[in-house]
């Protein structure tokens, strides 16, 4: 069981939750946890935004009943979570990788940025949102020392436009991304280097048992939950 030590709103419909408990199963940035919620049958998969020896940070958006319920939980309550699921990002040797996040695809990039910096790399960060009140983690990425560009579709904050508009102006030799499919398609069209995409799919189990989340890749069938969520650019069938 994981104890909620923080659960607060950080942007429109977006909450940050910190969970105290065993983090020893986490092996890579970009992995996720799968949360059992009272009254809901399936678990909810949420990316690990950051973690240390004693706690995990997640950032989630209220989109349906389960996340709505999560937003009502208070400190001290406990959640049954499966932790350290999925492959996570593979850290590549690159000097100037760029991390591109869209909406609630942003969170897993935070721990990734930390890990890349630890390896001596200088990641740039592009965070894409629709509008100003949705923006989160901008300050945190800057605090890590990352060159951080925020884009909003309506121009209410940062660069007006899409992440790919910002990508044009950045020097990068590799990319890591997480976000919605339309953003992925735009990146696939625009990106000039290799990179990794982190996918979402409806999940039955989240740990590889049910084949609920399969997708076809150039390297055969993969389970998003176990062989993913991160796939290499080169293996993806668009």
């Amino acid at each position, binding site marked *: 069981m994981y104890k909620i030590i923080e659960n607060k709103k950080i942007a429109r419909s977006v909450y940050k939750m910190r969970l105290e408990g065993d983090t020893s199963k986490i092996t890579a940035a970009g992995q996720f946890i799968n949360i*059992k919620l009272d009254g*809901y*049958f*399936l*678990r909810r998969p949420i990316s690990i935004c950051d973690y240390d020896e004693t706690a995990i940070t997640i950032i989630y958006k209220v989109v349906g009943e389960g996340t709505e319920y999560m937003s009502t939980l208070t400190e001290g309550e406990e959640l049954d979570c*499966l932790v350290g699921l999925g492959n996570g990002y593979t850290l590549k040797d690159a000097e100037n990788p760029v991390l591109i996040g869209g909406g609630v695809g942003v969170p897993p990039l935070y721990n990734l940025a930390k890990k890349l910096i630890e390896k001596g790399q200088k990641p740039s960060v592009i965070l894409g949102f629709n509008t100003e009140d949705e923006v989160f983690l901008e300050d945190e990425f800057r605090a890590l020392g990352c060159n951080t560009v925020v884009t909003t579709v309506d121009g209410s904050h940062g660069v007006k436009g899409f992440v790919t508009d910002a990508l044009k102006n950045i020097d990068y030799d590799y990319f890591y991304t997480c976000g919605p499919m339309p953003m992925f398609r735009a990146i696939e069209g625009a990106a000039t280097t290799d990179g990794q995409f982190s996918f979402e*799919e*409806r*999940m*039955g*189990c989240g*740990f*590889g*048992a*049910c*084949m*609920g*989340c*399969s*997708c*076809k890749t150039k390297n055969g*069938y993969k389970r998003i939950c*176990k062989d993913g969520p991160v796939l290499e650019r080169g293996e993806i069938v668009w």
Partner: protein
Amino acid sequence: MVDLSVNLAGMKMVNPVVPASGTFGFGKEFKDYYDINILGSFSFKGTTKEARFGNPTPRIAECKNGMINAVGLQNPGVHHVIEHELPEMKEYFHKPVIANVSGFSVEDYAYTCELLDKEEQVGILEVNVSCPNVHGGGMSFGTDSKSAAEVTKAVKAVTTKPVFIKLSPNVTDIVSIAKACEEAGADGICLINTLLGMRIDIKTRKPVIANKMGGFSGDAVFPVALRMVYQVAKACNIPVMGCGGVSSAKDVIEMMMAGATAVQVGAANLINPYASKEIIEALPAECEKLKIERISDIIGVVE
């Protein structure tokens, strides 16, 4: 000490708990959570003659106390299972396993069963004539007595191991289908497979499942499963493997009292990878409370 052992059509099991096909893969993902040798046995992912990717995604939808899946029998094909999965499984599972088989023609079933029958690891062949997730195949065999019997006969003709026919609950008269299988030589009946169900995403106005409909299972279906187990166990003289909505030791006991010799745990494994382990661990105490000394004594005790 409560005696949990049961004898399922000649296959001796240390307890009646059997993870259900499609919810336990080939056991690999679970062995990282616990030593799966504590299980009575398990039924591996539905295997077909050829490899299959299955249906498009999304394949999963949530329901109150249950889920819908439309995986559509994704599996690597029987040859791959025999060449890779079974040898690998030998390393971590040291008991006879239940081979779950599907097909799209009577010949398919016979072909796949004949091959799996030769594998010493296979203790029982579980012939799934009930998968609701494949077009123009599977389902129809299990919704009609004649074809269910036909598949049974064809499989029995090419195998020596006990053959269980896994039936669909989406039928008017489960008893007549079970009886037809018994008469055709089945050594046991497994039921239920999933109920045909559907969910709609009211925001997008589309079915949640790409395939529109899918197989509904989990806690919610328990009363329907229990009823069918009861009806079939009373009507037939071959053992019944009960399945559907089982998620606790009490459910296992209730299913056995209804007539099941062994009890499968399906969707519960997916939402809690320890589900089958926890059930096995809880069984002795539950039996003691109910003054059950040998669990096999309660099989079908309900009049």
